[in-house]
């Protein structure tokens, strides 16, 4: 039992005097006993106190006649008698609405006396935990959470935890500093196993406790993880989520123009260019340079706004049919939907269900972004799909005229050729062929063996000084030929993809290609040039001419 202030000392003195007097009269005072001796109570919760162990010191038959419960507020220095009852009222409860330190005193009276000065007390700490988090946070991002533990300075908890709940499921517990007062902490947006917590609404709880498991208090708030996503497809399929934000994220042709061959004449000298007829009133369908870009948002929200911006020179079409009526978003355009408006909300979800198509329109790139703004206009989550519009644009567009256009001709012979991944870099010539061009010669025609001669002027590799003329071209003889042209075999050989050092690819069906000295394809491709028989010379990707005519790469050479 503790001694307190001056007036209490006076009371004690008086009581002692009375006890001594009563003892003199042979009536001892009762002894109040409060349980528990200390208590931590959460604010706005009831603290329960018991005095059943109180007893009278006199002989049997005497008992506690009344219980009187007092609450002393250390903050206001005031007493409140919160419960008084007869000998059955040894229990009392009090609801504390303000954090702080309190004392609950029990005064008891025995049956022999009309009033007793005996009392016992319980020290009570009323704890309040307040949590304040933003209403929204972005997926794969962190959030700052403010919290306050009261009373501060005069009491510290034994432990403090930050608990994250998805519904009733605890997904993460983060230990915090065990001290009262105002604090902030950060949730990194991850669950306990280190994975990103998916987009959903979570309860953020600060748990304050002591060693006594019953003495825990909690404060909580709600935060919603919002995810918006743009899923871009490109020439090579679906772009990985984490890559599409990076430069060169998604690759789309910008020069496929199979709707109107005359378009090509608008860019001298017929270099690959964007469509020009796309804004016409006549719909254009079937262009396979359009690539899907899917929009999504989670969870479904009914407030805030979402904005789609096109910061590219490309165009977003509602479907693969192009035309003025089907344009969703032009270069530099922006669309915004207020999610609190049911009509606009539906429009956005319609777009998620029927995603648009991106079309490149120049050799530059750019980004398309989707941003969610909270009702307070704060940017919560954004996703950006970066596009790079590429083309094999060193040469000229294949001509579309004639009974069998060059496009059809080449793409029929080499089905792996994708329209905008090749172009014509030199006109047809019967003077030099693929092997000649593989060693950058333009006035000679090389054939492998005597029987493979096409012309009277062909030079046979399987003949001195490179070969033995036995009618079969061996790898040794081929190496000797290329060695005489200052090329040596690469350390990497087919079927591996040719590394950047490879200058010459020799194909299994006696074709050869030379690497271009350009940056066509923005580094995504390594472009090679093939002189195709007596036809034109084209630029292409290393494996796009694989097939029955040329076989597949069989030997790589590099410059020593």
């Amino acid at each position: 039992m503790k001694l307190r202030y001056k007036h209490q000392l006076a009371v004690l003195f008086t009581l002692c005097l009375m006890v001594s007097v009563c003892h003199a009269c042979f009536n001892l005072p009762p002894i109040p006993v409060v349980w528990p001796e200390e208590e931590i109570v959460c604010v706005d919760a009831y603290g329960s106190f018991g005095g059943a162990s109180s007893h009278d010191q006199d002989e049997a038959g005497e008992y506690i006649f009344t219980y009187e419960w007092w609450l002393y507020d250390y903050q206001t220095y005031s007493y409140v008698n919160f419960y008084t009852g007869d000998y059955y009222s040894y229990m009392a409860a009090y609801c504390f609405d303000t954090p702080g330190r309190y004392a609950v005193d029990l005064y008891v009276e025995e049956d022999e006396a009309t009033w007793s000065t005996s009392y016992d007390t319980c020290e009570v700490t009323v704890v309040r935990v307040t949590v304040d988090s933003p209403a929204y946070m972005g997926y794969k991002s962190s959030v700052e959470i403010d919290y306050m533990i009261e009373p501060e300075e005069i009491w510290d908890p034994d432990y403090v935890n930050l608990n994250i709940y998805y519904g009733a499921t605890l997904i993460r517990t983060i230990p915090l500093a065990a001290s009262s007062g105002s604090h902030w902490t950060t949730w990194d947006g991850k669950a306990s196993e280190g994975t990103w917590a998916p987009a959903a609404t979570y309860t953020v709880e600060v748990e304050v406790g002591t060693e006594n498991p019953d003495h825990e208090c909690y404060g909580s708030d709600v935060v919603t993880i919002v995810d918006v996503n743009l899923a871009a497809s490109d020439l090579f399929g679906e772009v990985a989520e984490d890559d599409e934000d990076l430069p060169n994220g998604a690759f789309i042709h910008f020069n496929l123009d199979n709707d109107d061959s005359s378009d090509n004449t608008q860019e001298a000298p017929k270099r690959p260019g964007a469509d020009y007829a796309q804004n016409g009133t006549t719909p254009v369908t079937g262009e396979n340079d359009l690539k899907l870009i899917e929009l999504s948002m989670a969870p479904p929200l009914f407030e805030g706004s979402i904005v789609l911006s096109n910061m590219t020179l490309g165009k977003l079409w509602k479907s693969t049919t192009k035309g003025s009526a089907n344009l969703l978003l032009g270069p530099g355009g922006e669309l915004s939907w207020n999610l609190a408006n049911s009509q606009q909300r539906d429009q956005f979800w319609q777009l998620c269900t029927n995603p648009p198509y991106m079309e490149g329109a120049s050799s530059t790139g750019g980004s398309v972004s989707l941003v969610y703004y909270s009702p307070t206009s704060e940017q919560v989550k954004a996703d950006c799909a970066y596009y790079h519009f590429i083309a094999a644009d060193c040469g000229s567009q294949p001509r579309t005229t004639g009974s069998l256009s060059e496009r059809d001709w080449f793409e029929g012979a080499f089905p792996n050729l994708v329209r905008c991944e090749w172009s014509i870099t030199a006109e047809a010539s019967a003077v030099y062929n693929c092997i000649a061009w593989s060693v950058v010669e333009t006035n000679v025609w090389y054939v492998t063996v005597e029987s493979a001669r096409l012309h009277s002027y062909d030079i046979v590799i399987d003949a001195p000084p490179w070969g033995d003329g036995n009618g079969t071209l061996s790898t040794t003889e081929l190496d000797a030929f290329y060695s005489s042209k200052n090329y040596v075999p690469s350390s990497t050989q087919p079927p591996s993809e040719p590394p950047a050092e490879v200058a010459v690819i020799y194909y299994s069906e006696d074709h050869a290609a030379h690497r271009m000295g350009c940056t066509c394809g923005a580094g995504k491709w390594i472009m090679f040039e093939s002189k195709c028989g007596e036809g034109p010379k084209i630029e292409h990707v290393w494996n796009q001419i694989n097939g029955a005519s040329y076989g597949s790469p069989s030997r790589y050479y590099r410059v020593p």
Partner: protein
Amino acid sequence: MKALMMAVILWMVGDLGSMSNAQPTMSEIFEQKYQAWRDYLHSHPEFRFLSQAGPQFDCSQFREIVSLGLPAIPYVAERIARDPNERLLWRAISQIAKVKIRTQYDPNRRETVFPDFPDFKPGQQDVFLYWWREGYKRTPDRFLNYHSEWQALREQRQAGGAQKYSQIVDLGIAALPIIVQKVRHGDTSLIPILSVLTDGIIGPNATTSECSTWWDQNGRNWLIPFPNRRPVARAGEDRTASPGDTARLNGLSSMDPDGSELSYEWVQLSGPRVSLSDATTATPAFVAPELQEQTTLVFQLIVNDAGDLSKAVPTPNSKSLPAVVRIRVNPKR
């Protein structure tokens, strides 16, 4: 009347019969087979992108062109000459005539050179056309060079004989006449080459006599119908004749650049008509007429080389351009 109608019917039947019996010319046959081959190539656009011989030639359509043999060569060559894009046809000539043209790469000039035709300028003309039009005439000289080198290597038992042997073989059928000539003179070492070039008709172990007899009987069919060059008619110098004299025209200076035998055709163009002794000889004669005043007689000579063996296939340029000679006849005194 009935007889007249019967005559008309018989004439028509006869005419139809002659129509049905009309044989297509080599030109028509070649064009037909050539178009069939072109159609085949067009049905395979990917062939255009091949830089090595393969399926373009490994087809029945092309084999049929080759099977036309030597008579088709002029038409093949002219087709190539008309359209350089048809140069793939040279392979037909190469297969028919068994000729191969040696090529080398000159690393200094970075271009293809032709050791057998050093004066041929690459890029200006297809070398095979050059061979067809001019180069074949060097076949005898090239043969003699290769042959002497080959013989020397054999006698000295030095390496390189096989290469020289191949070079002789690669001269093709154009070398047959001189090879046969050599064989006739006793060089039996050439008989195996003769056998190769005749696809074994002459056996590799044939005797000189057998070779000679075969050539006498069949050589005409084994001559390549090289292009005919126009003969040149030369009618002689203008001169004067006296009345009553026998004047003789002289076309003996006429010549055929291919060395073919010429036929002559003299025609009087002006002056009092005289009677030539034989207008189809090189030197016809006539008696100068007696005239009151000086008169000039003009005669035209056209020579024709159609009698040459190489004209088995009708070729242009068999007739020369006309040449004239003026014979002035003085008046009678």
